């Protein structure tokens, strides 16, 4: 037996489970035994009935797997509707029409997927950058960045109204970003591109930065910058030249634009050099902490947790009281765990729990590290 086996066995001896009242268990077991006996009679009869009914039926309509359903019986526009769906993380889905059907397909700590198949609903999503929250509506997927928004399912189109925060709306043709106050209708099968973007204001992580005065402008359709600013990242990537020999000659905007083109065209590894250049050369820029955070996310995505931890640490160091600090510290902790650096992860976890005893990631940090 290896040393590791001995360590694990030793640790497992510390595990204990109190099964509770034996009487309660015995009663529960006896109830189930009785139920199973009844089922042994009922199920064959039901199967026989179904087989006969199935043979006679011409109905081919197949519903998607239904795990949770909320059907409002109030008049249209009545909010809040009768049966809001509460998710484990505290997020809520409130039906807003007479007949709204919501399917909760996955409700996990890291991933929530909700399908709206009929009617309309308001989504109140608790911000959590470590969890993906996706709403599927026909051919659209609305990925939540942390927000409150409405989705209205009509015959010919789907309307998405963002009250606060932002969401990404995508289908097979592309994706658009909607921010607070935006309301857009999407026809079934619509092509999505940046023309839908209501707010051209850039940010370093999700939108497109303006070109600096010294860099070439969006003069022609063949210019990768123009394509990138139009949201055509895949096309922009095809014609974007390789990095210049003198990276110092490029401005922070150019570097961030290059990284966006690489990331959003599905080539995250090629965004690394640009983001590293931003972090190395523009430490004083207000967008650099966010660039370092994005770099950490890319390293996570590429299975390089040690590098991810370093990038998250750098993001914190660049802006110790910025809005990303809590998330960066949490992700740094998890990245260190993934990298096998348990002492480092425990140190960061203690730091997080001390600074954010009621933080967004407190429960997860406790759970993953076992710290009280």
């Amino acid at each position, binding site marked *: *037996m*290896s*040393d*590791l*086996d001995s*360590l*694990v*066995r*030793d*640790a*497992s001896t*510390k*595990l*204990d*489970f*109190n*099964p*509770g009242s*034996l009487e309660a*268990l*015995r009663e*529960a*077991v*006896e109830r*189930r*035994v009785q139920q*199973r006996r009844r089922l042994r009679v009922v199920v064959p009869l039901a199967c026989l009935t179904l087989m006969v009914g199935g043979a006679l039926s011409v109905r081919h309509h197949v519903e998607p797997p239904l795990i949770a359903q909320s059907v409002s019986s109030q008049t249209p526009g009545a909010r809040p509707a009768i049966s809001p769906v509460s998710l484990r993380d505290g997020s809520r889905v409130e039906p807003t029409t007479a007949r709204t059907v919501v399917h909760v*397909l*996955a409700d*996990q*700590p*890291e*991933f929530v*997927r909700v399908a709206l198949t009929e009617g309309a609903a308001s989504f109140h999503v608790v911000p959590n950058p470590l969890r993906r929250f996706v709403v599927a509506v026909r051919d659209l997927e609305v990925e939540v960045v942390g927000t409150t928004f409405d989705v209205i399912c009509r015959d010919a189109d789907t309307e998405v109204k963002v009250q606060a925060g932002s969401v990404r709306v995508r289908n097979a043709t592309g994706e658009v970003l909607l921010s607070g106050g935006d309301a857009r209708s999407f026809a079934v099968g619509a092509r999505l591109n940046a023309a839908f973007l209501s707010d051209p204001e850039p940010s370093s992580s999700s939108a497109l930065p303006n070109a600096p005065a010294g860099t070439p402008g969006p003069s022609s359709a063949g210019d990768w910058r123009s394509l990138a600013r139009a949201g055509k990242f895949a096309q922009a990537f095809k014609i974007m030249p390789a990095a210049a020999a003198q990276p110092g000659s490029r401005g922070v905007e150019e570097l961030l634009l290059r990284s966006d083109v690489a990331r959003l065209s599905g080539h995250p590894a090629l965004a690394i050099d640009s983001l590293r250049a931003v972090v190395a050369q523009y430490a004083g820029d207000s967008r650099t902490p966010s660039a370092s955070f994005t770099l950490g996310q890319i390293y996570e995505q590429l299975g390089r947790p040690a590098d991810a931890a370093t990038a998250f640490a750098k993001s914190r160091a660049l802006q110790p009281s910025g809005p990303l600090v809590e998330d960066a510290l949490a992700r740094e902790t998890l990245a260190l*765990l993934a990298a*096998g650096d*348990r002492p480092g*992860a*425990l140190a960061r976890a203690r730091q997080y729990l001390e600074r954010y005893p009621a933080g967004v990631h407190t429960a*997860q940090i*406790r*759970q*993953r*590290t*076992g*710290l*009280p």
Partner: protein
Amino acid sequence: MLPRAQVAPLAESEAVAGAGAGAAVLTLSDAYARYVPYVAKLALRLLGRPAEVDDLIQDVFVIATERFATLRDPSALRGWLAAITVNTSIRRLRRRRLRRLVSLDSAQRQPDLTPFLLAGASAEHRLLLIEVFQVLDRIPVSERVAWSLRVLEDEPFDSVARLCGCSISTAKRRVAVVQKALDEALKR
């Protein structure tokens, strides 16, 4: 060989096993009192998720209640319950993998072991167990169960093979596969 159990016209909880001449008489009440904690610990080590243990204990004792009258040798009760627990756990673990395939169960989900650790357990113990169960969640069920029985339960290889329904050499191979995966994942 002992005669088959004579099932008295009693409630399920009072059914009798091995009630032949000279045989020790055992009731389901005895089984509950003696072996529920054992089944609970075994289930926790096999599943790695405390939240699922209560359900599994119920599953085990439902099956045990229904089959109790067929238990011929009361002295084999512990091993008999262990076999039911292992088989039930295997079914549950396979269901978990299937759910993961359709995104209803996350491989990244971490069990909250904290309430189930004895007072002497350190943070390192907790972390190690969490990481081990995380790795085990990515390993085929048959190999995971063999390793859990050998390492966590300290069962000899012949017992592991019997419980897993395989040969001793297969049991050894399965345990070795998991040991290698853990060594690589934990970088020790």
